[in-house]
């Protein structure tokens, strides 16, 4: 007798149990704590916060633990939780010049006011596996600088802007409230705030690949890393009922301001153009990629050709979201018996007709 190959509730229940057991692994090994994940897998936590667009290290660590380290799955878990949260208030725009920087470098000037600050970077480590990390060991002592860093570091690009060589970075006329892509669909043409918002939530691998393509001839960016800074920044609210600003806490962000060449035109003198990236946590790879893609998506506005993938907003933005992409690619796992049956019966019909024509005697 035919038995339907259709999963029931019991099968689903068993798969949950198996997943939980696999997540935990060998119980002889101590279980990971959220504090360990937050402290020792900090960059994974940051990536989950960025693409999950929710700044909460504890929840991001929980998501990573639940997802057994699968970053995209963790992003998805965080997003699905985020969407249920009430919106209590809107913060004031971040002022990144007031960032308490932990790192700040410019690729365009040998020295800049406030100095180049290398900070905690893996850039100049020799990528040799450090076998001493294989066993617990004492933390190396960290010597502090003699003088504290300045409270406020002006942006390198502002110095060029003062000379008139950098395009102005002004809000659009009337300074309309930016779209909120967590509550409204992305529509085209998408303005720059909507594009930046999409990129900030976008998958790091997607952005990296697009950004890389612009450097290999698929767009014309001519970028220079004007300034990259990372550090802590206060989030401020201005509640109507108080009438003054309050500091509700600090977050770590990475900002990248790219300087790109632009020949000028009949209406504008030659000046550099901007590409901008800003992400939660520490991730220069993501912030730099975002800045490159932001600039290439401005191609139409700046009168450049728009033939490359990274210049086409619909292509770049509609495919950037890992939660959307991962879901749709993997939905092919779901049963498609009905559609496949439809195709099967169609191809059999076509095939029968084809064979009949082949067999028919030719004139």
């Amino acid at each position, binding site marked *: 007798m035919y038995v339907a190959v259709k999963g*029931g509730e019991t099968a689903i229940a068993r798969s949950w149990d198996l997943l939980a057991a696999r997540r935990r692994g060998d119980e002889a090994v101590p279980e990971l704590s959220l504090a360990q994940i937050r402290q020792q897998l900090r960059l994974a936590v940051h990536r989950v916060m960025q693409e999950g667009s929710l700044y909460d290290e504890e929840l991001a660590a929980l998501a990573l633990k639940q997802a057994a380290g699968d970053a995209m799955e963790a992003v998805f878990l965080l997003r699905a939780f985020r969407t249920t949260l*009430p919106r209590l208030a809107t913060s004031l725009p971040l002022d990144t010049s007031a960032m308490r920087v932990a790192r700040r470098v410019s690729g365009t000037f040998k020295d800049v006011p406030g100095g180049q600050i290398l900070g905690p970077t893996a850039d100049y480590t020799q990528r040799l596996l450090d076998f001493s990390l294989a066993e617990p060991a004492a933390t190396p002592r960290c010597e502090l600088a003699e003088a504290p860093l300045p409270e406020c570091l002006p942006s390198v690009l502002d110095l060029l802007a003062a000379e008139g060589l950098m395009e102005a970075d002004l809000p659009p006329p009337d300074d309309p409230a930016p779209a909120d892509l967590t509550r409204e669909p992305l529509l085209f043409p998408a303005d720059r705030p909507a594009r930046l918002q999409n990129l900030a939530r976008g998958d790091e691998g997607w952005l990296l690949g697009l950004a890389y393509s612009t450097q290999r001839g698929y767009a014309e960016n001519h970028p220079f890393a004007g300034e990259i800074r990372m550090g802590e920044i206060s989030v401020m609210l201005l509640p109507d009922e108080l009438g003054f600003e309050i500091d509700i806490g600090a977050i770590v962000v990475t900002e990248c301001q790219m300087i790109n060449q632009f020949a000028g035109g009949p209406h504008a003198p030659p000046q550099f153009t901007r590409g901008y990236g800003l992400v939660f946590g520490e991730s220069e790879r993501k912030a730099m990629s975002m800045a490159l893609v932001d600039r290439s998506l401005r191609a139409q506005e700046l009168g450049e050709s728009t033939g490359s993938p990274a210049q086409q907003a619909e*292509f770049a933005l509609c495919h950037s979201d890992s939660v*959307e992409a991962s879901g749709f690619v*993997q939905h092919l796992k779901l049963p498609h018996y009905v559609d496949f049956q439809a195709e099967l019966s169609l191809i059999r019909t076509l095939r029968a007709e084809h064979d009949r024509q082949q067999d028919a005697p030719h004139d």
Partner: protein
Amino acid sequence: MTEPFSPPSANLDDRWRYNFGFLDENTKRMLRRALLKAVAVPGYQVPFGSREMPLPYGWGTGGIQLTAAVIGHEDVLKVIDQGADDTTNAVNIRRFFARVAGVATTTVTRDATLIQTRHRIPETPLAEGQIMVFQVPEPEPLRTLEASEVETRKLHAHQEYGLMHVKLYEDIARYGHIATSYDYPVMVNRRYLASPSPIPKFDNPKLHRSPALMLFGAGREKRLYAIPPYTEVESLAFEDHPFEAQHWSQACALCGSSDSYLDEIIADDAGVRQFVCSDTDHCRQQREAAQ
């Protein structure tokens, strides 16, 4: 429906942590307003602020959001995938609503007030007052012919559907048939070209002047649309190549039904095929009636 296991304790009691139907009231209102516009302009794709759901995009997030926006305590919910109530995704979605809305669920088509479906329309004729919610992966019927949303919007605005006619005609020139067997495009209310979702074209005629309200949700693509009851829904065709639904020379191996949509099963290692109803409720009813 019995609960063979209880959810892991980490989930606590979801009813205390989530609103009725999972979505917050603001999101429901946004969806409800969009649904009313969708009903007012049948077949037109209304953009909406789709939310992340606790189910992957592509697995029914659009359908779930629509169901969450309309469902109430008085509803009786049926969820099918491939026509069956017991496929894993259908089970999962039905459990989700039983959990976050506490509503009654059923597998019997005529007992349901609300039916969420992926890829099928039940064989039992639908009745007035019933609402069908379709899960839609790609709401834009022209997408494979024109990738840009800006361009397809213009084509709909001008009711310019030549691209689709050309495509179907090229099929005929090449194969002698229209080579689309599911997600077969329809004209709704003689105005908008629409995707019926990936139902087999066998089900297309059930959309025409149905007494039930049909709602379509595409979560990942953030679009929803509707076909009100008694609305003209015409499957595209040509005078010399009229629309034709699938039919089988076999009958269902379980119930003997000869007019339902059949799944093909490979029954043994020798590749012996069996055909059985895709609609499990219909199949059960036929067998019960025969006894």
